[in-house]
């Protein structure tokens, strides 16, 4: 259930394009919403098979620079669906951006809720 990330190199699916599937891989798409106490809303739409293929992050938050939205999404994409929360939070935190009105943990939690 929890982290199964081993020290071994993981084989990435050949098709790693958003929304593209390999034959035996079922792709799901779900959204999850997190309401942050000060009133901001974060919605994450995730498509996944064994791995998270595509992420779309929307909401009434602030982000500087704004272009970093794509980098936050990319920090999640490619992760195994059973990635542990801490690893996902660290990956999101590694993006050089100022998150305003939400934290990396909110984004990680919404992502994990979507794939659950």
């Amino acid at each position, binding site marked *: 259930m929890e982290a199964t990330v081993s020290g071994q190199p993981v084989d990435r699916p050949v098709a790693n394009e958003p929304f593209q599937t390999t034959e035996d891989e079922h792709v799901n798409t779900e959204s999850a919403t997190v*309401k942050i106490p000060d009133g901001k809303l974060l919605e994450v739409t995730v498509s996944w098979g064994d791995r998270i293929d595509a992420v779309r992050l929307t909401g009434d938050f*602030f982000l500087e620079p*704004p272009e970093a939205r794509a980098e936050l999404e990319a920090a999640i994409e490619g992760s195994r669906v059973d990635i542990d929360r801490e690893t996902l939070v660290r990956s999101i935190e590694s993006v050089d951006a100022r998150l305003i009105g939400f934290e990396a943990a909110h984004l990680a939690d919404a992502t994990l809720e979507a794939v659950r």
Partner: protein
Amino acid sequence: MKLRVVDGGTYSEPVHQALERVLTDRLADGEMPPTLRFWSRDEPAVALGRFQAHADEVAVEYVEEHGIDVVRRITGGGAMYVEPGAVITYSLYLPRGAVPERVEESYAELDAWTIDTLRDLGVNARHEPLNDIAHPEGKIGGAAQLRGRDAVVHHTTLSYDLDLAEMLRVLRIGEQKLSDKAISSAEKRVAVLSAYTDASREAVVERMKGAAAERYDTFGESLSQDAIAAARSLASEQFLTDEWNRQL
């Protein structure tokens, strides 16, 4: 600090939103003095937050039927429904060095002169973190900022006499946001200034200019024709296109 005050010039929502980009860049490039701009509109519109999903925020069929412009801002934050004469929108374009680096502080500081003005008019307004201006009975308005290279744009919209029933037809008020706050009627979340003061919209704006003049060394001027032309051209390239407005 010298602050130019611009009031005048009625533009469409795409041109207004394009001006935000153009004027912020011009300030950063040293081609424009720090400026306070009051907006004038001729049509209702929706200003969408930069990261919001178009279809989540607006009643798509309704706005298309009624030809209401839905324009994505360069700033984050939430969707605002705006009507000519029924809201007060202003922008501050300031050098980055003149704005607190802490975001929470900067919202409070850059809205403080507005809140003081409203309180002088007898409106029980206060800053509500992060970016709201609130009355005990609801939200009066909200601000949004973008920090560019060397410039910050801070724009704020206050509801003066907004048609809240129409707002509810235009915007899809987030159900989750509402239920979380256990509020049954969305109207309760918005408070309009005209309910708390007899001052006309124009009188409120004049009081705001007076408050700005107490804090800064203000002078009145129009936007340059060149800046307006640049904004019109950017509006066609970006703020009028589905590619930008419906990117999400």
